[in-house]
Structure formats: structure tokens, C-alpha cells
């Protein structure tokens, strides 16, 4: 059945450990040609480490990763010929002009000499930087730098483009604009895009399929639509004042008909229910019976946030768990060594 599907990226039980920390834990996934695949997870979940393995910067501890059926560990050179990599940090050279940056990128990626100028002109039009091409990058805004960086990654028309947190640190309007550019280049060149993000909206807007990753493990892979659909129909969020009847409140809630799942996060509850409008009155009935004060309640259609919470048990937040702190600490120590 898989003979007529072409995969740009395939990993089999991919694992990467640093000492006794496992950053990437047994990841198996396949990304089809031309697909936009997103890795969604909090900082420290293993997204960047995975990208670094797929782009040949790190060797896997065990397992295998193939890009266009070349093994990243044993055929690194061929892999490098087939990929573009746009890093999380903006890496364009501030001292050079926009055009010089692209020229450098073209030379690094062995674009034939007689095609370089044409390709650069074409890409400058696409990212709308033609007017600024001869200005040094110091004069560019953050969004323009990012656009230039992305342009550099696809100048040589790679089969697979890796975008590591493409909009991190940009304001919301710039972020939306970058999304438009990413869609535009995907329409134009039809390459496979593998991106990582910790922004729900970004994953929702751009990706054909999403893999939710937490603590180095993939929790689920599916399209954003399916993930949301699988949540049941509606999401009820409750904030209540904690009291002695908390436990019985929770167990009563679980007994309500149509309630499929409850996530507890301190005094915040998230209920996933197939018939929210009928559930809410029942919640109020139970709370008044148990003398629990509800501060707020809302009923919404499920978002990717809810999907994330339901699979990982927590919201996406930056480095809030002890575990992440420990990992960051270990990373700092490695950098210092």
C-alpha cells in the first residue's frame, strides 16, 4: 500500500540522548512529498533536536532517519543536497546586503553560476525585498530579516525545507505575514516543509498534519481538523473557588451524561462534552448542591490548545516544569564545558 506514496522524511524509532537525558524518544513518523508537517510542543520538548538530526547536525543515538530515502547518518552529503534549513535564530549576515546574503547562500548550495542572478531576482520578488536588496541587513526590520533568511533556505529549491520556529520573537502582524509567505512559497515550489512551533495558531494555519510532541515523545499525529474533531463537540472551561468539597465536585462532574473527559489544572477545569449546552445547567446544579462557587464558565468549540491539553495534560508554556529547568541547566553546563 505504501509503494505509491513517496516519503520525503521517514524516521524509525529515532532516539537522541545527551548523557542520561533523552531529548528525542523513539520517534517514528513519515512525511509525504509536498506536505507541510508541523511539530508542535513546548520549549525543550525535543523539536529542535529532531530537526538537528534530520539536517545532519547531530547523529542519532539509535534509530534511523531518512530524507528522500538518504540516511542522515550515513549519507549526510546527499541529505545536505536535498534540504534547506532555516534556523530558529535569524542567521543572515548583518554586515552584508540582502542580495549578498542570498549570493552567499547560492554559492554554499552550489547553484550553477549562470542561474544565480535569475534565482535571486525571482526570490526577491517573491519575498518583496527587491527594493531593499542593496541595503545592508542592519537596516532591515525583524520581519524582513526573517523573510530573507527563509528565502536563503529555499533558493536552491530543496526537496525538504526545515523551518525551526519560523515566527518566534516576531509580533503578531509580522507573524501573520510570514505565514502568508510560507504558504506562498509552498504553492510556488511545492516542496515538503517540516516546521516546529509552539504556537497553536501557527500549526493550525499552516500544517497539513501535526505531530504533538512532549518530553521527547510523539503523543499523536493527525491533521488539525481531525484532531479537533476527535475532541468531541464542545469545550467547557470552568474556574472555581477551591473548597473542601472539591473532590466530590469532580467526581459528580464526571458522572454527567455527555461529558467525555475532564482535565484538572488547579482551580481550572476543562470539560470535553458532546452536548455542552445541556451539560452547563447540570454543572450549576451540582455546584450549588455542594456549595462550590464557580467564578467563571465558558463554552467554546475545541481549539488546538484543547487538543494539546488533552494529549499532554498541560498547557503549552515556556519551560515551566522542573524537568525542563533541569534540562536547560544540563545544556548550559555542556555549553560551558
Amino acid at each position, binding site marked *: 500500500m505504501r509503494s505509491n506514496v513517496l516519503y520525503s522524511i521517514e524516521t524509525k524509532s529515532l532516539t537522541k540522548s545527551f548523557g542520561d537525558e533523552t531529548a528525542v524518544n523513539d520517534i517514528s513518523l513519515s512525511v509525504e512529498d509536498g506536505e507541510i508537517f508541523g511539530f508542535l510542543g513546548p520549549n525543550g520538548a525535543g523539536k529542535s533536536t529532531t530537526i538537528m538530526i534530520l539536517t*545532519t547536525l547531530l547523529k542519532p543515538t539509535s534509530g534511523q532517519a531518512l530524507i528522500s530515502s538518504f540516511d542522515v547518518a550515513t549519507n549526510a552529503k546527499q541529505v545536505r543536497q536535498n*534540504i534547506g534549513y532555516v534556523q530558529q535564530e*535569524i*542567521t543572515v549576515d548583518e554586515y552584508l546586503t540582502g542580495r549578498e546574503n542570498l549570493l552567499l547562500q547560492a554559492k554554499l548550495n*552550489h547553484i550553477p553560476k549562470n542561474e544565480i542572478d535569475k534565482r535571486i531576482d525571482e526570490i526577491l520578488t517573491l519575498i518583496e525585498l527587491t527594493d531593499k536588496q542593496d541595503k545592508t541587513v542592519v537596516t532591515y526590520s525583524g520581519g524582513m530579516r526573517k523573510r530573507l533568511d527563509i528565502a536563503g533556505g529555499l533558493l536552491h529549491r530543496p526537496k525538504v525545507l526545515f523551518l525551526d520556529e519560523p515566527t518566534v520573537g516576531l509580533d503578531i502582524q509580522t507573524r501573520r505575514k510570514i505565514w502568508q509567505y510560507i504558504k506562498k512559497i509552498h504553492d510556488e515550489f511545492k516542496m515538503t516543509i517540516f516546521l516546529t512551533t509552539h504556537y497553536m495558531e501557527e500549526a493550525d494555519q499552516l500544517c497539513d498534519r501535526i505531530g504533538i510532541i512532549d518530553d521527547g515523545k510523539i503523543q499523536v499525529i493527525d491533521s488539525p481538523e481531525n484532531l479537533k474533531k476527535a475532541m468531541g463537540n464542545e469545550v467547557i472551561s470552568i474556574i472555581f473557588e477551591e473548597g473542601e468539597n472539591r473532590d466530590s465536585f469532580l467526581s459528580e462532574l464526571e458522572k454527567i451524561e455527555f461529558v467525555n473527559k475532564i482535565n484538572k489544572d488547579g482551580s481550572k477545569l476543562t470539560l470535553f462534552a458532546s452536548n455542552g449546552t445541556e451539560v452547563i445547567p447540570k454543572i450549576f446544579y451540582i455546584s450549588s448542591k455542594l456549595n462550590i462557587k464557580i467564578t467563571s464558565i465558558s463554552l467554546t468549540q475545541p481549539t488546538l490548545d484543547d487538543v494539546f491539553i488533552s494529549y499532554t495534560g498541560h498547557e503549552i508554556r515556556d519551560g515551566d516544569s522542573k524537568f525542563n529547568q533541569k534540562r536547560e541547566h544540563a545544556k548550559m553546563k555542556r555549553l560551558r564545558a
Partner: protein
Amino acid sequence: MNTLMYDTYTIFWRELKRYKKSRSGVLIRLIQPAIWIIVIGNTFSGTQPLIQSVGFQGEYIEFMTPGVIILTAIFTSIFGGVNTLWDRRYGFMNKALTSPISRSAIALGKMSAISLISALQASLIIGIALAIGVNFPNPIMIIPIMGIVILFSLGFSGISVMVAATAKSQETFWGVINFLGMPLFMISPALFPLELLPDWLAMIAKLNPVTYTILLVREMMTGVSEGGIPIIISLGVLFAFVIVMAGIASYVFTREVNRPF
């Protein structure tokens, strides 16, 4: 091989572009060697009889100018690799490492750029020396002298690129570089003739490629051959040094950048 040359040129081009646009340091870096020529050259002018005792007829300042030219080359090239650390920190290195160019080309491109910059600095020092009246009997010799400086700096920049690739921090880099730079300069005939060094120090100096480079430049500048080492030997040592350094630097650089930073 062709690809290696093309890729080396790509990195060379990038380094020079960066250098051109961030030149603010050029003049500052000239101040120190200028002070060497002016202060040390005049302070030790009384040592002329010592210099003459080994067959050198000119003034002390003429004797030591080649030493200062090489001093400039030593420090320009041994400091030159420091941007490798920035490249690793700010992502250019990862960009280059995920492109099809070879790791050796990155090292060699950096080395050739540093070597050219070093020759530029050295030529400015020659200019300063001429301006303050140092006698230069045969100005056409500046061409082979530049050739020697380029070769020497190419080898020396290998040390810098290697240390920068191995060091994970600026502190380590500067520590190691300062530890290496000054002794290599001091244990050579840069300031005093080889013949006047104690035997054991002269022995060590003869293991130092800086020694042979200075002897070559001095002979070309002043016409006096000193130390009893034939030109062909000095040239041979210099070429061997460059080839060995290019090889070791490529190897060490490749090994180090393949490790996570």
C-alpha cells in the same frame, strides 16, 4: 578537488566581505606594531655593536623591522579565527554545515581570508617603517616579502581556526591564543640575532617556524643573511609548515564542528 576550491573561495569571499564592512579595527591594530618599531627600535639603538658583531651593518631599527612585520602577521592571523566562535553561536556555522560544502573548505576558506588580511596589515607596517625612515635598499623585494607573509599567515591562521573550533567559549580561546602567541614571537630572532641567544634558547628557536620566516624577510629586506641558515632551508621549512598546518587544521576543524556546540 574543484569543488573544494570553489567552496573554499565561497568562504574566503564571505570572510573578506565581512572584513571590508567591519574595518574599524584596522588602524587600532596598527598602533601596537608601530609602537614596537618606534619605541623598541629606538630604545635598543645602542645595541648596534652587538648586531654588527654578527655581520649586520645597519642600524638596530632596520634589524628589527622584519621582526615587527612578522609580529603583525603572527597576531593578525592567530586572532583571526575568533569569528569561528561567533559563527557557531549565531548560526552561520550550522547554515554552512547543513549545505553541501565540505568542512575542510570552511577551515581553508577562513585561513586564506585571514592570511590575506594579515598581509594587508603587514604591508601597512612596512609603510609605517618607510615613513619613519627605515632604510629599504631594494623596494622591489616587497613582492616576495608579501608572498612570505601570506604563506606564513596561512599556516599560523590554522592554529587560530583550530583553537576556535575546539574552544567552546571566548575565554578559552583568548587564554590559549595568548599563551601561544607571545612565546612564539619571543623565542625567535625577531628582536636579536640567533647567534646572541643562549644555546638552549637558540635550539628551541630553531624549532619555531617564526624563526625561519623572520630570517627570510630580513634577508630580503636588508640583504644580510644571518644565522647561517640557507634560504632554501628556510623556504622548505615554511612550505612544510603551511602544508602541515592546513592538513591538521582541516582535520581538527572537521572533527570539532561535527560535535554539538
